[in-house]
Structures are given as structure tokens and as C-alpha cells.
């Protein structure tokens, strides 16, 4: 059985409850930088996207600074997300069970996970978030550069800029929507958020949602009794 799912730093600790390390400190910092810049980008972007939201420029000290800062945040997002990508891409590769999972999406939404196959570190939904974000951010940075007139005006025609600005808007809308799903899932599935705050989840959480991953970790544990004895 391959151990694709196990990422550096993943580990399991016997105890009550069992604690499973899911994200290293590095990964978490990386994630929150990405998260922060994404939020700032969404806010500044939306401000320039719809008149009703122009007031949001106030958060950034006015329209001029918003216009000036948005692309720079975009650059930060791009590189920081790139960091996440390098960390997570392998664990997000498609698996057979992901198909089954998707087929039984109703059970997913209604929380009947006993009817789902055992999953690795990420389920298909998470993989969808990962890959769509990767794609959208690529689109956003490219189209973003095209309309970053302050430095790149002369490299494209106005017609190309027009296409870019439309693509940028659409991609941004999708990215924000994906982000909402991502955040909601984290809230809905209790016990998830600590993975990105403390870096670990409970064994139960892993057992319930990512059992295959848990097994792989457990399999790596040294055989024989553990030091701690459990009450019978």
C-alpha cells in the first residue's frame, strides 16, 4: 500500500485521545499567509469590481492605495500559495476511492460517512478546492499582470487588456466561491480548524474522515505494546 498520503511531519501519538499531527508549523504559517492575502485580495478586488463595494477601499486607505496595493498582495498570494502547492500536491493526486466518494456525495452532505470508502489525507472535496485554487490563482496572476498598467502597460494591446480584465473578474469570483466552500467545510466538519491552528487533529477525527491516512500512520508505529497501558 503506497504512502502517498503521508506528508512530512504527519505523525500519530498514542494517548487519550490519540493525537495526529496533520500540519507542520511551516505549513500552517504558509497557509495563513495565503489565507490572509486571499481575504485582502477579495476585499480590495471586490471594491474595484462593484460600485456598491467601493467603500471597501476605505479599509486600504482610499482608492489610490487600493489600486496600488492589490497587485502586490496578489504577488504575495501567488508565491505563498505556490509554497502550499509544493507541500500538498502529492497528497492531492486522484485516487480510486475519490470517485466512489464523489458518487456518494449525498451521503457526504448528510454526514453518513460510514457509507463512504476509507479516505487518505484528503477527500475529493478538498482535492477539488486544492486544484481549482491552483488553477484559478494561475489565471488570476497572469491576467492580473496584463492589467497591471503601472509596470506592464506597453506589453499588451488594449484589446488583450480588455479580455484580461474580464477573465480576472470571473476567475476572482470563482476563487472567492471556492474559498467560501473551503471555509464552510472547515466549520461544518468540527475538529477541522485545529488542524490549521494547533497543527493536529484527534484520532477520532482522522478515523472518521481520513481513516486510510490514519491506518497508514498507525502502520508506521513500532509493533508491540505501547508504553502506556489502557484501562480495561
Amino acid at each position, binding site marked *: 500500500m503506497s504512502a502517498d498520503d503521508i506528508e512530512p511531519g504527519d505523525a*500519530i501519538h*498514542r*494517548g*487519550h*485521545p*490519540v493525537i*495526529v499531527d496533520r500540519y507542520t508549523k511551516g505549513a500552517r504559517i504558509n497557509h495563513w499567509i495565503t489565507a490572509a492575502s486571499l481575504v485582502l485580495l477579495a476585499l480590495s478586488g471586490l471594491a*474595484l*469590481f*462593484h*460600485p456598491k463595494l*467601493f467603500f471597501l*477601499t476605505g479599509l486600504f486607505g*482610499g*482608492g*489610490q492605495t*487600493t*489600486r*496600488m496595493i492589490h497587485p502586490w498582495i496578489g504577488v504575495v498570494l501567488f508565491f505563498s500559495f505556490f509554497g502550499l502547492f509544493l507541500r500538498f500536491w502529492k497528497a492531492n493526486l486522484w485516487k480510486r476511492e475519490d470517485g466512489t466518494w464523489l458518487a456518494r456525495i449525498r451521503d457526504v*452532505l448528510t*454526514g453518513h460517512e460510514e457509507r463512504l470508502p476509507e479516505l487518505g489525507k484528503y477527500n475529493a472535496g478538498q482535492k477539488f478546492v486544492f486544484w481549482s485554487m491552483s488553477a484559478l490563482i494561475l489565471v488570476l496572476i497572469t491576467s492580473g499582470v496584463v*492589467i497591471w*498598467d*503601472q509596470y506592464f*502597460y506597453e506589453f499588451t494591446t*488594449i*484589446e488583450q*487588456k*480588455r*479580455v484580461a*480584465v*474580464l477573465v480576472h*473578474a*470571473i476567475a*476572482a*469570483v*470563482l476563487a*472567492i*466561491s471556492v474559498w*467560501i*466552500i473551503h471555509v*464552510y467545510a472547515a*466549520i*461544518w*466538519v*468540527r*475538529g477541522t480548524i485545529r488542524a490549521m491552528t494547533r497543527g493536529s487533529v*484527534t*484520532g*477520532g*477525527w*482522522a*478515523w*472518521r474522515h481520513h481513516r486510510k491516512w*490514519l*491506518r497508514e500512520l*498507525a502502520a508506521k508505529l513500532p509493533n508491540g*505494546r*505501547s508504553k502506556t497501558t*489502557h484501562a480495561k
Partner: protein
Amino acid sequence: MFPPIPNPTTKPQRPTFGAQDLIRRSASTITPPAQRQTEVAKLIDVSKCIGCKACQAACLEWNDLTEEVGVNVGVYDNPHDLTANTLTLMRFTEWVNPETDNLEWLIRKDGCMHCEDPGCLKACPAPGAIVQYSNGIVDFDHDKCIGCGYCVKGCPFNIPRISEVTHKAAKCTLCSDRVAVGQGPACAKACPTQAIVFGSKDEMKTHAEGRIADLKSRGYANAGLYDPPGVGGTHVMYVLHHADKPEIYAGLPNNPRISPIVEAWKGVTKYAGLAVIGFAAAFGFVHHLIAGPNRVSDADENAAERLADGRRWRS
């Protein structure tokens, strides 16, 4: 001669139009005034133009603009393009008329056309940074401009330029400050041959008819007025000796209109976009109401512990 533009007065005057006369305001919904002012227009008669650039000089001087001294690149067009300081520019084209085999030196004064349906205003995200007065003047408000360059993408004539110094958009204002006190634009006043005249739009159309008749009498069968309907007409119009092919005048767009891409971006996308986002959020909310939180049970925890202990397998 066409009645020239009067001398400026030095007495303080109340402006003849202002904020109360706006019919369009970028990124804002406003209620236009009940009564629209007389529509003004600048008529540029290319057939009378001698390409002297007096309009460029007058524009720089009146608007206190300082342009860079460039270099010669083998043509008469200087500067080589519109800039944030050069709001109007003579564009020279040497065209050999295939019918007569005579050389024609086509000289067009380029600059803001003051569209009735301004693409720049439509594209602008900053409330009030671009306004349109009921007399037709489309003006930029530098205090409100955020320098995003959307107006550049919105304009069908490639006119606005963003200053690299102030990061604000700039274009011809039709000398709104002069017009507001009963004056005409500085370029129109200066134009030696009255190739540029200024007045009410109707007056300009009538004047143009006379000019077109004269041109036809001189053998320019296709002489005509350039007042493109694609942008609802413009408040800067051209008399062209070859109105059937405006593109020979340094690429004056034939039937210009706001790019459908810009229309889509500023239209459907704007609303659909928010809808999609809203839907995503709503979905989560509703789902949470119905499905409730997805919690880890003690059974799960125990299962995990057992797995960790690995005892089950050895019994």
C-alpha cells in the same frame, strides 16, 4: 467667418453648469436633472486643417501642462502619441488617393470625442471620478480618480492616459472651465483657420452641412460628418473629405462602439459574479441548518485509540 469665441472676462462669474447638471456619474446611480442643457460640440474640419499644432500649444498653455521635449523619429507627429500632458495631438497621414493619384496630406486632431455614451465612464470603478454633464461634456475628476486604468480599457478611441507621476487619468476636458464661463475650448479659440469651431451641437451640424457642400463642390464626393452612432454620437465631431473611410485618418475607428468585452465585464459579470458568491455562502448556511455540524463521536476516538494500540489485531 464663423463667429469666433469671445475674449475671456476677468470678472468672477458663476459657472453656467456644475454638479447639478450631471447626467452620468461613474460607479454611481444618479437622477439626471429634469431639464438638459443645450448640448455643446466641437467640430473639427479636417479639410480646413493646416496641421499647425496651434491647438496643441493652446492646450498645453491653458491647462498648465508641461510635456517632455522628445526626439524626431522621422515624422511630424510630436509628441509621438497622446500622453497625460498631451491631451490633443495632430496625427499626420500621407495618403495617395487611388482615384486621382494625387497625394493628400490628411491631418487629424486626435483627442477625447466626448461620447454621448462614454466607455470610460462605464468602465470607471471610482464613484464620481468620471462625470458627464447634461451639455455633453465628459470630464475627469482627478481628486476621485484612483488610476486603475479601466477608462483606458473602456474607451473605444484609445484616448485616456494615466500619468506616471500622479497616477491619475488624463484627457481633454473640452475646457470645461472655459465653457462654464461662456467661453469655448482653448484649441478652438486658437485654431487659425477655424478648422476647429465650437458651439451647440445643432449649430455645429448645420455648419458642417455647409462645409460638406463646399467639399462636394470641390470633387470630394464622399465628404461627410463623423458623429458615430455606435457611441450615441459624440460631442467632438469631424468633417472628413473621405467620410466613407475614416480609418485612413490615422486609424479613426469606422463605426466605433464600446467593446462587447467591456460591456460583458461591466454588465452581466458584475451581477452574476456577486450572485455566485452569494449562492456559495447561502448554500453553506442552509446546509448547516439542515445537516447540522459533522461531529466526531467517542466511538471514533476509541476506534482511533484501538488502532493506535494495535491490540485488536493480536488477539
